[in-house]
């Protein structure tokens, strides 16, 4: 198996799907000739041509709207938002149209579109290049939200998202793009959307998280292992709808649960995870459910010191895990 970066796994997934199914096409700002500002669509323009890799104007509502129309017409668009922070003008299209059309048309119409968007902080990107926007979409039945943490998951989940008959939001952590590398099989495979994945087996505490924070938790777990603390780590992978069974199983295993997100704490996905655990696992809980998240501040600041204060990191995760283990 090839060792591949997170972003290369994403490019490969799109390339394989475009080769497999000629209905699949990409549209977005600078995705064509430039190959994307992060190079996620690198090489696709040369291979598949200008009609399948479309450079669009700077108008996210149009990228989403055109994509939704094409999807309803029978194509399989991958609409790239250059940064998740810029998705806001497209939210009306995504929520009011893409997520509703199957329900509204009583199954006559579907909208098989993937919205790809880099999100997340810790890259000195400040306000418009660092935010987590997933919670906005996470109470819209009809939508699915996928956030992979590893190159392997990224490829398998993106291919599953492209083949899904309903709209999928696919958020990629931009710091993970070139930081995270891992084994990716060259052959075709998909990963079922809606299933969490145990990234580490442990006995003392359970950490449930997603995205780049999975790696922070894994690093922290390595350090805690030396002090005899064994951490069980569950990667949600799909954050909407949540894998309730997986969450209940992981929480019940140790009875001590830490939930981690880099999003603002209040109203984030992990609040819903906490509710699932509270509803189902009361008699298995050995400690109050603990949350580690960004502060309730409008967005990631630019000053490095302030960014460090806002952004979670392995040290913060380790401290929280240790506190929970000692409870």
């Amino acid at each position: 198996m090839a060792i591949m970066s997170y972003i290369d796994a994403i490019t490969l997934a799109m390339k394989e799907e475009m080769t497999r199914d000629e209905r699949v096409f990409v549209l977005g700002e600078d995705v064509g000739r430039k190959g994307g500002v992060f190079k996620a669509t690198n090489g696709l323009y040369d291979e598949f041509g200008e009609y399948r890799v479309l450079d669009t104007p700077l108008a996210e509502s149009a990228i989403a709207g055109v994509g939704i129309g094409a999807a309803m017409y029978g194509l399989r668009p991958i609409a790239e938002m250059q940064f998740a922070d810029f998705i806001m003008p497209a939210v009306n299209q995504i929520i009011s149209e893409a997520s509703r059309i199957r329900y509204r048309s009583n199954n006559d119409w579907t909208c098989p579109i993937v919205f790809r968007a880099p999100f997340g902080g810790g890259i000195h990107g400040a306000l418009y290049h660092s935010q987590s926007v997933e919670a906005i979409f996470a109470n819209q039945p009809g939508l699915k939200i996928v956030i992979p943490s590893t190159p392997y998951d990224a490829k398998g989940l993106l291919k599953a998202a492209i083949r899904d008959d309903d709209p999928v939001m696919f958020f990629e952590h931009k710091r993970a793009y070139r930081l995270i590398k891992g084994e990716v099989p060259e052959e075709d495979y998909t990963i079922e959307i809606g299933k969490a994945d145990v990234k580490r087996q442990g006995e003392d505490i359970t950490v449930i998280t997603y995205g780049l924070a999975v790696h922070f938790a894994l690093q922290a777990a390595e350090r805690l292992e030396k002090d005899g603390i064994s951490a069980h780590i569950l990667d949600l992978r799909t954050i909407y709808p949540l894998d309730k069974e997986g969450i209940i199983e992981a929480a019940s295993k140790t009875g001590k649960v830490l939930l981690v997100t880099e999003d603002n704490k209040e109203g984030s996905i992990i609040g819903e995870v906490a509710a699932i655990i509270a509803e189902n696992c009361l008699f298995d809980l050995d400690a109050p459910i603990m949350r580690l998240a960004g502060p309730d501040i409008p967005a990631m600041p630019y000053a490095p010191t302030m960014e460090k204060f806002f952004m979670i990191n392995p040290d913060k995760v380790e401290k929280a895990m240790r506190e929970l283990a000692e409870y």
Partner: protein
Amino acid sequence: MAIEQIKMPQLGESVTEGTIEKWLIKPGDHVNKYDALAEVNTDKVTAEVPSSFTGIIKELVANEGDTLAVGEIICTIETEGAASEEIVEVKEAAPEEPTAETVKPAEVQKHATPVEREKGAKARYSPAVLKISQEHGIDLSLVTGTGNEGRITRKDLLKIVESGEIPVAKVEQEAASTPSPTVTSSAATPKPAHTNVPVAVGDIEIPITGIRKAIAANMLRSKHEAPHAWTMIEVDVTSMVQYRDSIKNEFKQKEGFNVTYFAFFVKAVSQALKEFPMMNSMWAGDKIIQKKDINISIAVATEDALYVPVIKNADEKTIKGIGREVNELAAKVRSGKLKSDEMQGGTFTVNNTGSFGSIQSMGIINYPQAAILQVESIVKRPVIMDGGMIAARDMVNLCLSLDHRVLDGLVAGRFLARVKEILENITKENTSVY
């Protein structure tokens, strides 16, 4: 004089590493602040790394072609000024001891006196701790916690359960006002409570005999421990009745005892038990034991008591054999000659409630068996047959009580359906009593 470090700079968003394309200086060179030191190649750009200091190049840590993560040292420079705050920062990060210290309190708590331990987090139990302590009858006041402020953790209890040394509350303590609803296995058979029943003139007080006590204890234990579920099916035994009636007199003459319907039922049940061994099993606390032998307990009543002698290996016996044994056991019960070993080893009970004319009853399971089948009275009833005709048929209800810990409705239902199938197909042609 001080040695300063030059680190791989962040050359753009999402860039986490860079490759040294070419060194523009060599050790010993004098460089001014902002002079270019090296060309660095990233996924996005090729850029020059400027010097942050003025001084002499000391060492090139990275070689051309090396890929380094952002923040890794690429070279060092000897400067003329005093050391910068860079070194101070390293010192700041060094002392890590306080975190290790925080593990200690649990140890300290161990040596504290019991009175002190009751304070703080010690007496506050998590739902998981309460659940495990109740399941295993652990007296939490005897457990030493290793959690924060001596809190008892789920893991503390799991370790105790694994070790098998479970601290159980003493009886005297139970009488005190400890509200913990601990159910230990020794307390499983509750003593008969002394209840105040008003006695009026003319009422007769009957002393409890040994057998009555045993019946009371067994029934109470079964009802108390085994969650009973109940189900009933209706069986058309017209052809069985015809068959039995046709051989009744001849059989009596030849064998010297009556061939009863009950023997047919016991035979059919034994045969079905062979096919559904789960029905022939017992609850054993931490496991279920599926019995190999099919030993049918039958209930035999006397004026003031109830005995359950056992027909051993009933599946290996003929209808005649079962009938003879039922006859003999009943005679022994009535003459008081039944031996205790003739009441041992039952794996399933068939109760002939029909002999009293009952048409429906909810039996209490013969502990620790998993189920009891009540054979009710055979009655003639109008039944709508296939084709819509109404016919007078011999109908019987079979009522099954089952221990829901061991059995579920599915297996019980299939078992009953099989018993029904066997009984409804008994004819002179395909069933021999011998």
